[in-house]
Structures are given as structure tokens and as C-alpha cells.
């Protein structure tokens, strides 16, 4: 049985910027342990010398001519923003005030 402690779930949630509740931590720790048990089956495969697949079809870098094209109008883009000001996205502060 794989385990994922409540503290580990809280840490992962923090890394993913999720403010989970206490009830969610209890619920998810149990459910994720069961999921981890199921997915840990991948460890059964013998994969020596097997390369990983990142994409199902062969991928090559795609190039195009560097042509100037119109972009979406600024007002149209900002219309969907939770907050905008002076033609820009308005965001909460990211720095502490100077002491």
C-alpha cells in the first residue's frame, strides 16, 4: 500500500498553489493513496533499454515565416480579465512593502 501523508498532500497542494481545506486534506490523502497503489503498477514493467515516449507521433520543430500579423485587440483581451487598469492586467502585489 502506497502512502501519502496528510502533510505531503498539504505540501504538494502548496506547490500547486491550491489552498485546500482540512476536510479536503483528509479526503485526498486517503483517495490519493488508493490511486497511487493503482498507478504504481507501472513499476512491474521491465523497461531496461526502453526509451520514453513523450509524444505518440514523431515530432519535429515547426518553423514558419516571421510575418507580422494582427494580434487580438487589447480591449477584447482585457474584457475577460478579472481586473484591468490603464490598458493592462491589474494584479495583486507581489512584493512586501519596505520596512
Amino acid at each position, binding site marked *: 500500500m502506497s502512502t501519502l501523508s496528510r502533510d505531503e498532500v498539504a505540501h504538494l497542494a502548496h506547490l500547486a498553489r491550491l489552498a485546500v481545506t482540512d476536510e479536503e486534506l483528509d479526503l485526498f490523502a486517503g483517495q490519493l493513496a488508493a490511486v497511487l497503489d493503482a498507478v504504481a503498477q507501472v513499476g512491474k514493467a521491465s523497461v531496461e533499454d526502453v526509451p520514453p515516449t513523450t509524444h505518440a*507521433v514523431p515530432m519535429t520543430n515547426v518553423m514558419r515565416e516571421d510575418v507580422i500579423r494582427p494580434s487580438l485587440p487589447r480591449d477584447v483581451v482585457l474584457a475577460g480579465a478579472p481586473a484591468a487598469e490603464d490598458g493592462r492586467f491589474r494584479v495583486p502585489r507581489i512584493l*512586501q512593502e519596505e520596512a
Partner: protein
Amino acid sequence: MSTDVTSMTATEIQAALADGGTSVEVTRAYLDRIAATDGELGAYLHVDPEAALARAAEIDAGSTRGTGLAGIPVALKDVVVTEGVPTTSGSKILEGWKPPYDATVAARLKAAGTVLLGKTNMDEFAMGSSTENSAYRITHNPWNPERIPGGSSGGSSAAVAGGLAPWAIGTDTGGSIRQPAAVTGLVGHKPTYGSVSRYGLIAFSSSLDQAGPMARTVLDAALLHEAIGGHDPLDSTSIDAPVPVLAESARRGAQGDLSGLTVGVVRELGGEGHRDGYEDGVIDSFGAAVARLEKLGAEIREVSCPAFDLALAAYYLIAPSEASSNLARFDGVRYGLRVGDDGARELDEVMALTREQGFGPEVKRRIILGTYALSSGYYEAYYGQAQKVRTLISRDFSAAFADVDVLVSPTTPTVAFPLGARVDNPVAMYAADLCTLPASLAGVPAISVPCGLSEGLPVGFQIMAPALADDRCYQVAAALEAALTADRGDRGFLDQLAAR
């Protein structure tokens, strides 16, 4: 035009329109049925009757009237962004958002003259197999309202099976077109990865996501697929190949001669020793369909693909890992919900509160699982190992396709299960995708076509083909559909729909 337009196939609607019928009549019939029944069915998240009728009138007055797909209504899964039309991906975090542009799939259907009926319900960010993870409403199965409509494209399946749209677009990451199609008696096809543009699909797992058709017949699905397929410079994973000829393959298949075709029955997907979780009724119906293909001239062989046993484990590491990265864009900055921005809280805190309130439990579980699988110390054992298993699955397909033309299996291990039965047990919910995951991981095309009933509910038959051989899926599916229809002597579920 017949008043019975909501139980017609799209091909029949096309003929009626070419014969002088109007798109306004057709569109109004669907809107009326939506108004009358969707309160209980729950297929749609957004319907704008005025816009749909105005669009239909525009087509009726234009030069394309009566040609191609012009005037035929269509529904889009709410993961497809549509300019000026609310798009939520089933999530509260995008409630009220009106995208500033059209997805390529939406733009191509618009250019073809189709009429958008509305946006259909789905599991939040396409994560689920029952549509119960939608943040907005429960969708019921038209065959039995206490059963799931499948997921994540459950709004699309319920709409088409319930007579609320003649056909619809779904998306499939691990089975989200094929499984809902199977449990509602429809045809659903997941195209070869890269053959339908992903531009404007709200991303879940980018190496797996594909849009495709959900329809009442194989021919309808082929026509809808042709309308959305083909290279798109706006999607860097788009394959630069011509749109395959699919409707013609469906018509050829319907003639019923499969001599020269070799069909491989995958032992690991419901064969001897691999039947845990499979219902007897599903196995019986599947077996009878295989026998029917043999009667049409196909040579049947059993094929073993041992790595398929690990597909579920690999998928539920790869998809959550990609999702944890893709869903980082929902940060409350550029679009959608923002919570807790009171002037005192900092950005990180506002992001965390926004995501806490905006995402539902399954999305949070997958983000946490993906973050775990990608974190240092666990990466090799989980994500890295899963990617290697993905290679083994592709190798099994390659080896099998060296011997057979198509592979077949049941689409789902069970018929539609009761609403609520698995919602608190993620692992049980994931098992609904057991048969559809290998084709997703290998990027190969796969179709689900109805093959009978078990306990009064539809059973789906899955046909998988090599990459870019989508036409084979349509050919074999059409042959089976035609044979089973002839055996029954009726139009199956289309007759039931007309009687409802």
C-alpha cells in the same frame, strides 16, 4: 419536412435541406426539444435560441443553402472555445468567460455553414467518465435517467442520443468520446493524434487530447470528421497530411464485404484471463459482433498485447502530470475567476484561494497527483516509468498491426453504471476507461460503434487502426452497423428516439 426531424440522422437532414427544407425549421425543432426536455436531461450548459435561429436564417438566405453541411445544427462540448459564446470547460474557474477567438474546430464548422445549437456539459476540464465532475449540473443518460451518460463528453452524448442535437463534437484524452458514445448507443471516433487541430481546445493532457465526432450513424460521424480534420498551422502537433477520405470508406463498408480483412481480438481487453470487471452481457454482445464480422468475410485472430494491462496505470500518471502543468494557467490573472483580492493579500495567496474555490475535487486530486509524479525523487519511478510503458504499448500495437488490419475490443467493461455509484471512488471511476486507454497512449485512431444491448442498455464495440488509417475504423464500423441493422430489421435506437 417531417416534424420528426429530431430523430433523423444528419445525412437525412442534409437531404431534406437539399430538397428545399429550411435550416430555420430544423433548428427550431431541436431548440423546441431542448426547451422541453433539457431541464431534466442536463445535456447543455449554454443555449442561445435567438442566435441559433438568426444563424439558421442567415444560411437559408445565403448562397450555400442546401449544399454540404450548410444549415445542419451541431453542438460543441464546452471545452471548445467559441468567440463571444460562454466557454467554461465545466469549471467554475471560467464561469462567465467569453473567449475572444474560435477554436479551429469551431471555425471550420462555422465555415462549413453549420448552426451552433449550444455548448454541452462535461466533466470539469474533461477529467472524468460520468460527467458528474461538472461544476454545473448532472447529465442523465437518455436510455435511463438514473444512469451516467458517460464522460467526459457526456453532455454531447446525451444531446445526440436524446434528440437534442443531430451530432456533436467531443474530445477524447483517454476515452472521453468513445466511452460516452458506447453507453448511449452512439458512434464516436477518436482520430489519429495530430489529425484534428487542438488549437482552441482548453488543454487537459496535450500529448493525448483529440477532438472528434459523436453521431447517430457511422456515415454521419465520417462527414463530421471530414469537416473538422486536416492540417492546421496554428497547432504545432498537427500532422501535415490531407484529410482522409472517410465518408466514402463508410459507404464502402456498409456494402458489407470484409473479405481480405484481418481482425485481431485483443486478449488483454476482455479475453480469457482478462475479464475482471467485465460484465457478461458486454462480453456476449462483443463476441456476437466478432462472429458477425467473420460472417461478412473477415478473418478473425486473437492477438496478445501484454503491455495493455499497464495502460491504466501509465495513463493515470501521464495525464495528471500534463494536467498539473496545463492547469497552472488558471491563476486568476488574465481571465476567469479571482478570489480574495482585497488589496492586502499577495499574488500567491490570491492564486491559491482562486484555485481552491474555482476547481472541483477531481481536478484538485489530479493536480496534486501530477505534481507528485513530476517531483524530484519520484519522477523516474512514476512519470519516467509511465513514459517507458507508453513505448511498450506502442510497440504492442506495431507488432499487432504487422499481422492484422484492425484490433477490436469492447469499448467499455460495463454498460452505463448508476449515477453516484463511483463518484467517491476515483479508482473505480478510472476503470471505465480500461479499454480505451491503449489507443490514446499510442495516438492511434479508434471508433466505438453500437453492437447490441445488455440489460436494455447499449454496448459499444471498439475498432482500433494504425495511425492515419482512420478510414479503416469507419469501414469496419459501417459494415458492422449495416449488418446488425439488417439482422434486426429496424433502425434501432433511431426508432426509439422517434417514439419518445
